[in-house]
């Protein structure tokens, strides 16, 4: 499934040629469709609606005559409340539209009013979420690589320009940014510096120390223990980075390699901007 696939939309049609739907039934229908991940348009005449788009549509109504014939991206169906969600699911399958909710939409959103294009996020993220466009402007390129519930990159942004709209608190959730928030962000970076420059250099240094300590006798269990110790310390300081995210980080060697790649990418983008 590509994240660019267009989702099915359900239209509750109550205009000319269809009888109105009672408000309680309308509420039940809309809520059940939303909870199954389907967008809903309630069409009427009192206010404008947005113009049509290429989304596949399931149009349901209490038709006074036979509904119009099916078109390539439109199906028409009688309003049948108990079976509405199943009908939407059947239409979604028939149109080969993506399954909603298959991926929790957790990803960074950049506030370009605040972003200074400093590339700290690109340097920091090991999962390839960030990249630059042809104008060397930072952008989110692979949002489905982002680790669910991890707001770590927003904490290294000196301008609090990175939002996760589903985060619990501001300014990461999009709330206004206060001076104390900015100072707090700086403090986070200072904590990182205390750890040894940055998170990944810390991991790299520990990896080097472990390598010299254990030499050829260093086994995978000891390496894992070292990594867990380091990550546990980091998790305690950062506070809200999920343990499963930390444990899904690549090996220390891979981290070092990826960090160098990301730093080089950021440096190149800054040099050419």
């Amino acid at each position, binding site marked *: 499934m590509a994240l660019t696939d267009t989702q099915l939309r359900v239209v509750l049609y109550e205009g000319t040629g269809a009888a109105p739907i009672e408000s309680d039934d309308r509420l039940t229908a809309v809520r059940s469709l939303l*909870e199954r*991940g389907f967008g809903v348009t*309630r069409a009427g005449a009192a206010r404008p609606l947005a113009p049509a788009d290429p989304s596949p549509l399931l149009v349901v109504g209490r038709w006074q005559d036979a509904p119009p014939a099916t078109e390539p991206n439109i199906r028409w169906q009688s309003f049948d409340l108990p079976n509405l969600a199943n009908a939407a699911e059947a239409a979604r399958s028939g149109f080969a539209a993506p399954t909603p909710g298959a991926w929790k939409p957790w990803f960074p959103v950049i506030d370009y009013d605040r972003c200074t294009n400093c590339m700290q996020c690109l340097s920091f993220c090991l999962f390839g979420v960030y990249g630059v466009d042809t104008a060397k402007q930072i952008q989110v390129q692979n949002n489905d690589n982002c680790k669910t519930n991890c707001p770590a990159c927003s904490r290294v942004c000196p301008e609090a320009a990175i939002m996760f709209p589903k985060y619990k608190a501001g300014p990461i959730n999009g*709330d206004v940014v206060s001076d104390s928030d900015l100072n707090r962000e700086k403090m986070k970076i200072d904590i990182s510096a205390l750890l040894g420059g940055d998170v990944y250099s810390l991991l790299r240094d520990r990896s080097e120390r472990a390598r010299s300590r254990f030499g050829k006798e260093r086994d995978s269990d000891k390496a894992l223990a070292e990594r867990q110790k380091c990550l546990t310390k980091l998790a305690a300081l950062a506070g809200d980075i999920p343990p499963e995210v930390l444990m899904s980080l690549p090996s220390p060697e891979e981290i070092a390699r990826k960090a160098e790649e990301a730093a080089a990418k950021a440096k190149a983008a800054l040099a050419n901007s």
Partner: protein
Amino acid sequence: MSAPAAGVPAILYCHCQYAQVVPPEVKAAVLKQLCDSNLPFEAVPDLCELSARRDPSLQRLAAAGPLKIAACFPRAVKWLFAAANAPLTPGTTEVLNLRTLPAADAAAAIVHPDLTPNLPTGKVTQADAPASSSTPSF
């Protein structure tokens, strides 16, 4: 506070289906108000998901003219649309923040025909926060 924009706004409601950050009673009140009204509206399960997909429906909605959006923080909504190549028009867009508004206020505001544009422009700081907004620290 901006002056009301001309034109009756279209309505967009986000159910924020994939997170528990909007109080359920607020979502319930807004959705009931919409369904009890005789107004057309658009309801999406999750704006974040549409933005992540760069779903063309966001361009359709952004091009709808005056638009009232019931979702979350205006700064987040603005950049969610922008990330999908569907920039909202600051002068004709109002975002109701369901994370901070009381249920009754949100329900009344969503069907009100007046539109008070409030998309942030430039760096948003505490001075831009509405008096009633809570700004939890982290």
